């Protein structure tokens, strides 16, 4: 880290009224800035201004709230009396070649007890957002190690004692580790550990899922086998279909060539069937006719019987008419006789008129007519019984039936004749062709069509099965993909990766810590041996992993030291820590020499301070280091010298003047 303060500007801060600028720029040959000031003039105010500007607090462990409470007391009193209500400190510095301009302003309100603090940081020409200012400053000069480069000499006496407590050592260790970035590595390690745990859980789940995915995989394998089998069947069916279609085509072509013969064959088949039926019918009719001849012999006498029957019927009719005429004549005679006798009518019971001559005459005529009729009866009597017997002998059914059957037989025989003729013609045309062959060809064509239909049906079924198998495969594959880790083997490496990184971070932190501890131990030992009056009695310092410090004798045994020795020990450790934490950056020391004797002050100035880095700003009082002593000891190492003076009798006002 290359870091150097360029200027410190204070405005109405502490005893410094108005704006006062201290140029702190140094070069490698003259890295020391000396600021002299008597007690109470304002050295520590300048030291506090620098710290406040950087971190917003006036001391290492102070909180921001506590510092804010202190702020009104930091406003220059004469300025305040003249109406000023704000103070400001700004620092210009350069870190890694980049210029930083940091300003912190405090505005007071009301009675001056309400404060608004306005920090402003420009890095190069960029304005840093307020919320990031502390982070940016922390990157270059972390507040936790401020004690090592903003060192208050007043604390030197107690520093060694502080190191005897675990808390302080932890604070020191944590501070230096914070600057070195070890918390960043530890945070990363913690997070990666969490990721490893999550990955481990996922991996456990994977193992759980494995059996499920294996089952699905087995089903998929089975489906793949089925698909292969279906594909084989498909090919076989396609081959068979193609062969059947080829044969069918060939057969159709052959059938087409003998199409007319095929029609003849079909007609022949029909005619033969009809002929056979006709023969059967003919035989049946002949049998029926024979039966009719056996039972219908009487019909041969039908004509004579009919003649006789007509004669008898005529006779009977004539007899019946004559009998009716006789009856009518008798009735007339009887009526005329009754009328001729007179008296009461036997029919109507009325008194009849007396007979006349006419009646007698009519009676004579009626009797003559009756006699005539009776005389004619010699023609025979009524013979109804004979009429019935002859009528019963007449057969009116057999003949028509015979005729009808005979007619049918004749028609059938005619048809059979025609069929025979037609069969003869067809037989002539088919001469030279085997009808059986033609029929077999037709049969083959029909069989082939049936086979083709069968193959097509099988093909469709096959397609459906393949489609079903495909869909099932897709469904199972998707299911498999949804099972974490089923689709790839890198899942298992996730845990391995995080465990590797976590282990590496752990080892890096440990190694980094050990490296820093070792460097601090070496630097602190070197510094101590340079500072101490008689280094031969010491082997050096031993710094444990938790920063417990022991001074070792030349034989390597722990040994005690004096109060002065402890202060040198503290300086050595602070110097080493500063080197480890702030590297080449500046150091600002407020009254660092006050507790040391002259010899050790000289050693500190000659060996310790130049070891601290590229820039050392010392705030000293005459009592600990005069200008003459400083010039004598440091000589050209001094880059700039200032003195804090009181320009007036006002004890609230101080001024910084350049000496050299």
């Amino acid at each position, binding site marked *: 880290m290359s870091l150097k303060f360029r200027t410190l500007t204070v405005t109405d801060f502490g005893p410094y009224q108005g704006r006062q600028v201290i140029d702190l720029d140094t070069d490698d040959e003259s890295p020391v800035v000396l600021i002299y000031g008597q007690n109470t003039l304002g050295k520590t105010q300048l030291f506090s201004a620098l710290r406040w500007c950087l971190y917003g607090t006036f001391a290492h462990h102070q909180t921001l709230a506590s510092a804010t409470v202190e702020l009104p007391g930091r406003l220059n009193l004469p300025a305040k009396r003249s109406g000023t209500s704000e103070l400001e400190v700004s620092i210009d510095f350069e870190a890694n070649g980049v210029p930083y301009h940091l300003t912190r302003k405090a505005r007071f309100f009301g009675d001056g007890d309400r404060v608004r603090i306005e920090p402003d940081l420009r890095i190069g020409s960029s304005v840093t957002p307020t919320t990031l200012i502390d982070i940016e400053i922390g990157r270059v000069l972390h507040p936790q190690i401020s004690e090592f480069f903003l060192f208050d000499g007043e604390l030197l006496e107690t520093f060694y004692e502080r190191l005897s407590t675990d808390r302080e050592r932890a604070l020191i260790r944590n501070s230096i580790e914070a600057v070195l970035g070890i918390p*960043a590595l530890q945070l990363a390690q913690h997070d990666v550990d969490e990721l490893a745990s999550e990955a481990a859980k996922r991996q456990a789940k994977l193992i759980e899922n494995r059996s499920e995915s294996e089952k699905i995989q087995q089903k998929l394998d089975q489906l793949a086998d089925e698909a292969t089998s279906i594909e084989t069947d498909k090919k076989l069916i396609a081959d068979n279909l193609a062969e059947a279609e080829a044969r069918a085509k060939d057969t159709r072509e052959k059938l087409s060539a003998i199409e007319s013969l095929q029609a003849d064959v079909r007609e022949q088949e029909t005619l033969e069937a009809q002929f056979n039926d006709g023969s059967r019918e003919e035989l049946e009719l002949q049998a029926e006719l024979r039966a009719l001849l056996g039972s219908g012999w009487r019909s041969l006498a039908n004509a004579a019987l009919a003649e006789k029957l007509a004669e008898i019927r005529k006779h009977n009719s004539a007899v019946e008419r004559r009998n009716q005429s006789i009856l009518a004549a008798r009735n007339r005679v009887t009526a005329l006789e009754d009328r001729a006798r007179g008296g009461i009518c036997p029919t109507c019971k009325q008194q009849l008129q007396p007979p006349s001559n006419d009646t007698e005459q009519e009676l004579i005529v009626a009797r003559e007519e009756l006699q005539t009729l009776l005389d004619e009866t010699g023609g025979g009597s009524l013979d109804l019984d004979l009429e019935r017997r002859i009528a019963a002998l007449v057969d009116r059914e057999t003949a028509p039936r015979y005729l009808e059957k005979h007619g049918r037989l004749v028609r059938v025989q005619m048809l059979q004749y025609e069929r025979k003729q037609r069969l003869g013609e067809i037989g002539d045309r088919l001469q030279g062709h085997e009808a059986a062959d033609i029929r077999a060809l037709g049969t083959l064509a029909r069989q082939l069509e049936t086979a083709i239909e069968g193959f097509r049906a099988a093909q469709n079924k096959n397609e459906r099965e393949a489609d079903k198998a495909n869909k099932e495969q897709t469904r199972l594959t998707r299911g498999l993909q949804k099972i974490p880790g089923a689709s790839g083997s890198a899942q298992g490496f996730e845990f391995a990766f995080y465990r590797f990184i976590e282990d590496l971070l752990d080892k*890096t932190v440990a190694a980094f810590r050990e490296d820093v501890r070792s460097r601090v131990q070496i630097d602190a030992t070197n510094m101590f041996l340079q500072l101490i009056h008689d280094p031969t009695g010491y082997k050096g310092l031993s710094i444990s992993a938790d920063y417990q410090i022991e001074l070792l004798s030349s034989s390597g045994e722990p040994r005690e030291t004096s109060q002065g020795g402890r202060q040198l020990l503290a300086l050595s450790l602070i110097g080493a820590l500063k080197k480890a934490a702030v590297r080449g950056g500046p150091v600002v020391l407020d009254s660092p020499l006050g507790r040391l004797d002259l010899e050790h002050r000289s050693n500190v100035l000659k060996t310790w301070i130049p070891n601290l880095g590229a820039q050392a700003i010392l705030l000293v009082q005459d009592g600990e280091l005069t200008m003459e002593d400083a010039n004598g000891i440091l000589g050209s190492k001094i880059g700039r010298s200032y003195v804090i003076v009181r320009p007036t009798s006002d004890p609230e006002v101080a001024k910084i003047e350049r000496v050299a």
Partner: protein
Amino acid sequence: MSNESVEDDAPPTQSEALSVMMLEAQSEDVRKAHSLIIDYCSEADLKGVVDLAWRYQFLDDRNPFKKDIQEIQANVARKIHQDGPADG
């Protein structure tokens, strides 16, 4: 561990941490303990881890760090899928 060159404009402590990490990654016990994965992690991957550790060290929300680390993991996983250890 492959030896990819790493462009380094990081602050010294960060680059020191990376150097320490690289040394640890090359140690025999680490190689033995993580033989399954170590050949797939390049120096750039490890530099990525250190960069992320530094970038997110002041953030309370650790999710962005985890997300970016997972990307590095995914990158390593891709290399595993391609079955090609890091070669420089």
